[in-house]
């Protein structure tokens, strides 16, 4: 009995050790960036590289702040992420619900067509999108980038949310319809609240896609609506490579998503587990 207990204890420790190693492997690039951002400028590109800074310094952050208008680009990133996620979620969840409930071949084809937009390399969409945004007079505006990010995120939101809606029994909305709702109010008052964990997870992923998006932000913005990824990339140019400032900007840039993920982490897990067990 004693030996059995000790064995299982050892097994647990080994598992935990393995999991820690695995986590470290994934976290290594991020930890390197964070640690490097606090190194004195001279140590950033020291050879051989040092893992830990000799002393903590905010030199890179001060340099980054003088080189970039990071406040403005972070604000642009926040506005674009929030705006595009809100639009993609509002439209995508309704479309996802329609896809989940419809047996019509037309709707199914629309769904596949929407997914196709996600399958083609974004760069092939770049020229037509650039043309459309220019035609609409929305170059270098937050709204232009919001619309593009929303459109790019829509297929993902439709696909992911339709999976969550499929797990909700149709009886629920039928009960609501018998109780006096119409299709739309049954959706907003019954189905949406029930699907909240799944939709929260979808929203997080959509927000991260927009927050990290680089190609279209680079093409469609210039000064006014420049987002953080584009601003950070400007530290790397043909004349110089500001590694220290880049790690500082990268660290700062991660904070909002990190906070969001920590706050909604439980919701994400709930969302991922939806449908795994019959409720």
């Amino acid at each position, binding site marked *: 009995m004693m030996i059995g207990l000790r064995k299982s204890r050892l097994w647990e420790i080994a598992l935990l050790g393995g999991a820690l190693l695995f986590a470290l492997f994934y976290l290594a690039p991020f930890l390197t960036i964070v640690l490097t951002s606090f190194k004195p400028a001279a140590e950033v590109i020291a050879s051989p590289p040092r893992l830990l800074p000799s002393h903590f310094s905010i030199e890179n952050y001060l340099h980054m702040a003088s080189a970039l208008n990071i406040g403005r680009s972070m604000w642009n990133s926040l506005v674009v992420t929030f705006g595009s996620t809100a639009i993609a979620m509002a439209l995508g969840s309704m479309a996802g619900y329609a896809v989940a409930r419809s047996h019509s071949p037309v709707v199914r084809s629309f769904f596949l067509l929407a997914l196709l937009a996600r399958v083609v390399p974004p760069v092939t969409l770049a020229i037509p999108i650039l043309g459309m945004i220019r035609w609409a007079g929305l170059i270098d505006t937050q709204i232009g980038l919001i619309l593009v990010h929303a459109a790019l995120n829509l297929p993902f939101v439709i696909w992911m949310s339709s999976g969550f809606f499929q797990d909700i029994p149709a*009886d629920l909305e*039928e*009960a*609501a*319809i*018998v*109780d*006096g709702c*119409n299709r739309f109010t049954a959706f907003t008052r019954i189905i949406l609240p029930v699907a*909240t964990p799944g939709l929260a997870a979808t929203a997080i992923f959509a927000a991260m896609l927009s927050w990290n998006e680089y190609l279209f932000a680079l093409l469609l913005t210039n000064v006014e609506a420049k987002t953080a990824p584009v601003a950070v990339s400007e530290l790397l140019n043909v004349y110089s490579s500001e590694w220290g400032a880049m790690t500082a900007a990268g660290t700062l840039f991660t904070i909002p998503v990190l906070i969001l993920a920590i706050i909604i982490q439980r919701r994400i897990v709930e969302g991922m587990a939806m449908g795994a067990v019959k409720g």
Partner: protein
Amino acid sequence: MASIKLANISKSLGRNDILRGIDLDIGSGEFIVFVGPSGCGKSTLLRLIAGLDEITSGELLIDGVLANGMSPSDRRVAMVFQSYALYPHMTVRENMSFSLKNARMDKREIEKRVQEAARSLDLAGHLDRLPKQLSGGQRQRVAIGRAIVREPGLFLFDEPLSNLDAALRVQTRIEIARLHKSLKTTMIYVTHDQVEAMTLADRIVVLNAGRIEQVGSPLDLYNRPANLFVAGFIGSPQMNFISLSTTGPGASREMVLGIRPEHLSISRDEQYLASFAGKIEFIENLGEQVLIYVNIGQDRPLVAKVSPDEDFALGQHVALKMEHGRAHYFDGESGMRLEREAGHG
């Protein structure tokens, strides 16, 4: 209390005919049960009456008013679903008051109705709980309570007991019967369980392959099944069928004799004035009764229901005697009941 008239109702999905030519009158305050095998269209018919599916052709009249295009809420129906369909994010109180809030009813009246329903269903202490905090039986009672508070003209039940365990099913069945007695509201109940159908119904509607096979009181269906399908569907174990040929002047006729297992008696004495004789090939002891399967040289053995006091053994040769007054005769081709030949029935 609502009266319902279905006139030549059909429902098709693409090229599939789900229901064909359904004619049915349901009187005010009646308890009607739809039974039939899986896929016979009984739930679809209920959904057409509820307004959850569109009628392809035919007329549905509720209290004499054409209701084909009416929304479910305008039909004044309340429905209890097989899965209960309780709103998981709402408390019991919110679940029960949801439809009344939609109808913009006065808050005090809502609370009064919810309290009354909760008291009658023994849910008063659970009003602030979420559905996931309740047992299966309690959830079913909330689903019934949600229907009661609306004071509908018509209750629709879609296999409401099939998710409950056997003991709870009996208890809830009795509660539903009591509910009908006290409310006297028209109720339509879908089930594939014939015990529920026989015990609850004023009249049973037997459906098969999208058509009504027979409408009648439970005893009517048991004593005078209209055709082979109903004869085989109502009663457990199933009625025994024996093919017969009768020859008359210039013509012969194929017939089927039907006799229920409870109307066959068995004797070990093969010289007994037997209807049939054969060898016991299987015995099922159900406790309060024993089912004896006797091979009489047909495709399927005859089943007789006997008392557990009688002692029989596998392989034993026995004689079977039927109560002639209880025999049913059907046309071999059409499967329809033949009245003339049926002595008693």
